């Protein structure tokens, strides 16, 4: 029986709002899918687009970036800077061939546990429908252990 595809999602979340909101979702025992791995950063302004590329290189099928609502940033303007950066980066990735389903953004505050669940589930469902990001994984070919045949060398 074939294993059904379960997407791996990496979520970059800001410490003060979204991470706390996700924690609230947990303590409130809200039911949510488990595919997202969270990486906590102090502020969305810390998120360098190279993190997104690294996430895809490491095998992520989708990336979610989430932070405080505009005006609520713990560091005053971090999310404003991030917002502008994301417009440019999103357009660049679309031009280069990374579908916008695979990189999504949200504002989730510390009290929005329910919103967090619906955002994460939404991302997971849309990436599941899109399928695994095989095109990106194929780029890893030169770095992966090659499949050896015969010769008694351990195969992958």
């Amino acid at each position, binding site marked *: 029986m074939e294993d059904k595809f379960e997407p791996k999602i990496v979520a970059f979340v800001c410490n003060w709002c979204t991470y706390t909101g996700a924690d609230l979702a947990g303590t409130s025992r809200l039911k949510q899918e488990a595919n997202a791995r969270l990486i906590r950063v102090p502020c969305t302004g810390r998120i360098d687009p190279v993190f997104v590329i690294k996430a895809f290189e490491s095998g992520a099928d989708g990336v979610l970036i989430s932070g405080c609502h505009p005006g609520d940033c713990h560091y005053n303007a971090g999310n404003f800077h991030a917002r502008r950066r994301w417009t440019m980066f999103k357009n660049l990735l679309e031009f280069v061939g990374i579908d916008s389903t695979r990189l999504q953004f949200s504002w989730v505050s510390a009290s929005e546990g329910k919103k967090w669940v619906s955002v994460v589930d939404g991302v997971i469902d849309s990436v599941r429908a899109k399928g695994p990001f095989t095109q990106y994984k194929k780029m890893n070919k030169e*770095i992966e*252990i*090659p499949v*050896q045949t015969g010769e008694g060398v351990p195969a992958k």
Partner: protein
Amino acid sequence: MEELIISTENFKKIVQELLGKEFRVIGIPEGENKYQEITDGSKLSLHPEAAPTSSSFKEYFFPKSEPIFFYKQNHSSVDLFDPIEDKKGIVVIGAKPCDASALPIISKVFNWDYKDDLFNKRYDSSLIIGMSCNYKDDYCFCVSTHGSPENTKGSDVFLTSLENNYFSAAAITPKGESFINDYVKYFEMDEKKHKVIERKEEIPEHFNYEKVKTWLDNNFENKFWDTAGEMCLGCAQCAFVCPTCHCFDIVDEQCSSCEGRRAKNWDACQFSLFTKHASGHNPRDNQEKRYRQRISHKFKYYNDKFGEILCTGCGRCARGCPVSLDILQVVEDINALAEKS
């Protein structure tokens, strides 16, 4: 062995046979000016009058990024895996003398204090079919680096262009001799006495290497170096297109948290971090010093160590340099300084 001739058409048929026998054939396809893997014999071109390609064919012997081994971490140990060896022999067809002569030059450093099997396996199982060159431009200076457009160094078989798309084929090494024997049915005797196509212009001697070398031996601190390379931007274009540049970096790369590989990548002395030490000190911390290194390595240090000039005068570095920094003009300036003193 009597000199045999062969038509370009028949050469293409040899290529088809080589492909059938699972050789990797490297040549310049018709309509392009790059060394590439030829997968269809009919696409091979042999144009002695063409300019040198924009980059050399060293990547087939010394790839731009090559795995040394792969690793996988287990709970308490690490498993190592060898890269899959490409068992196909390489045949390079139509190599200009400035490219073919580079391989024996760099083979010396790859067999010096450590025998580099990654290079040796490819080089030892290869066959180089060189071709005389009928090209000249202001960037060519093979004659000054003890080469020439008819230089057979590095070639196993050497082709000289004749009229009517024929080439005379000379076996330079035993490998070359057995190649010609294996495919002798495609060669002919030169009954019609085809004429050799003469070059339109001779390549002059631009500088006296011995004088340049003596100057380099004695002028490490000369003020000449303050401005010789000051326009250099510090990219690696020159080193990467060069048939003799061979510096490499070894890096470890992760594929997943427990798997990855160790790789050998092209590196260049023009990069700012090339000589940065783990302590943080960088002995070549400005572009002037790095450019002095490039010229000195190519025209002095390599000769001191291995008895070869690390330059074949192909001129690719100068043709492609984004700021047109011309190695020939720098060495000519050194020659002029050497003659003055």
